[in-house]
Structures are given as structure tokens and as C-alpha cells.
């Protein structure tokens, strides 16, 4: 399991309106989903928190060659968030036998929280 909390104004400070920075952290689909929304940076902060929560659930954090864009939050038609993995994170998941990955996001008053829960075929460094 992994949990993370992020302030929306911190995300706004860091990526500002710099497209290159935004794309270093978020995928095109994530940016498109949040763009123009009221409280856009709360939505982005929730997605950043989800990426961190997933990496914490994997027990890796940013310690390996994992990119933030390797963990993508996509929304199903119902609005339920789902995680799609790519790159080094997907390789790690496959190598350790990831069976299930669920994530929940929430945000309010400038603060975003995400929780990720994983189940594995084999024991993992997850904390």
C-alpha cells in the first residue's frame, strides 16, 4: 500500500506554465484531462500524488530509473481512476508479478491525497 499527499500550489509553483516541465511529470492524456478545469492544479496534484502512492506501494519511490510519466492516471467513463504503467515501472511490475493495482484520489481546499493498493504473485519490497 502507498499513500501520498501533495499541495496544489506546490505543483503549480514547480511546473508553472512551462510545457516542458508539465510533460516531464504528466502524460499528454493527464494534461488534457486536467486542462481548463476549475481547480486544474488540484487535479494535477491528485495525479502527482497517485504516481507517488503507486511508487511507494511498489517499494521503489524515485530510487530506480522510473519516470513519473511511467505511472499514468486515466479516468474510466464512470470517472473511476485507473492506472496504466509504462517503461521501467511496467518492467518492475511484470518482473515482480503484479496482480492488482487500485488507486483512489481525492482533493479539496488546495490539497490532494492518493492511496494505491497492490497485490503481488511474489513477495515485494512494498511497504
Amino acid at each position, binding site marked *: 500500500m502507498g499513500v501520498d499527499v*501533495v499541495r496544489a500550489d*506546490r*505543483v503549480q*509553483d*514547480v511546473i508553472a506554465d*512551462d510545457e516542458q*516541465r508539465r510533460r*516531464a*511529470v504528466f502524460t499528454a492524456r493527464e494534461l488534457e484531462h486536467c486542462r481548463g478545469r476549475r481547480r486544474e492544479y488540484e487535479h494535477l496534484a491528485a495525479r*502527482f500524488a497517485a504516481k*507517488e502512492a503507486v511508487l511507494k506501494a511498489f*517499494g*521503489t*519511490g*524515485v*530510487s*530506480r*530509473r*522510473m*519516470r*513519473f510519466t511511467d505511472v499514468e492516471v486515466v479516468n474510466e467513463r464512470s470517472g473511476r481512476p485507473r492506472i496504466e504503467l509504462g517503461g*521501467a515501472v511496467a518492467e518492475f511490475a511484470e518482473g515482480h508479478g503484479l496482480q492488482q493495482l487500485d488507486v483512489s484520489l481525492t482533493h479539496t481546499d488546495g490539497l490532494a491525497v492518493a492511496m494505491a493498493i497492490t497485490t503481488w504473485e511474489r513477495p515485494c*519490497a512494498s511497504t
Partner: protein
Amino acid sequence: MADVDSAVKEAVVEALALDEDEVTPESTLMDDLGAESIDLLDILFRIEKSTGVKIEASDLGDYIQGGIPDDEFSDENEVITAKGAEQLAKAMPQVDPAEVEGTLKAEEVITLFTVQNLVDMVKTRAAAATG
């Protein structure tokens, strides 16, 4: 290009809203200075702006691991191997290989990364970029 030592210190001070005397070369970014992932991004973006050297968060792991495959850097329990410990001492000279071999988990390596390690990394990248 700005002086790398000064540029890195300034980036750390500003990103973490610290006083200059709180940041020393030996300070570890995460444990001593309390940097979170979003702060690491902020630091790296600031360094890119002042020095022109682009480093992504994922590059920190690459630099530390030195190209050693994951299954050689750490064992099946994600604990650092002798080969991994030897590499750590190259990327982070303050690390004693004997102390970390067989005890340190791969996920904990980043917590040992210091301001000086970041300075060295930026200088290495800058040198590589200029050939």
C-alpha cells in the same frame, strides 16, 4: 554556465525554503533537508534553468546505479549486493561499501544522496555534454 556548486546550493535553498547555512555539501537531500519528490523536481528544474544541464528525476537512479542491471545491483530481496555497494561508493564517495553491502535496501539508496553528490552529478553531465 553558472558555477555549479553555487547553482546547486541556490536551487536547494530556494526549492526547500531554507537558510543558506542550513545547506552543506554533506547534507542529504531527503533525510537531512526533508526534500520530497516534488522538491527534487523543483531542484532539478532550477538547476537546469541556471546551468543548462538537464537532469530528470529518473536520472538520479541511473547515475547512482552506474549502468549495473537491477538484478546485479541488489538481490532478490532488493538488498544491495557487493557489486552494488562498490558502485555506490563511486557515485557517492561518502558511502562505506562494507556498511551497506547486504544491509541497505535499494529503495533507501536515494536517502543517502547529498548536495555534494548532486554537484558531482551535474558536473559529470555538463562535462559529458561538452565532450
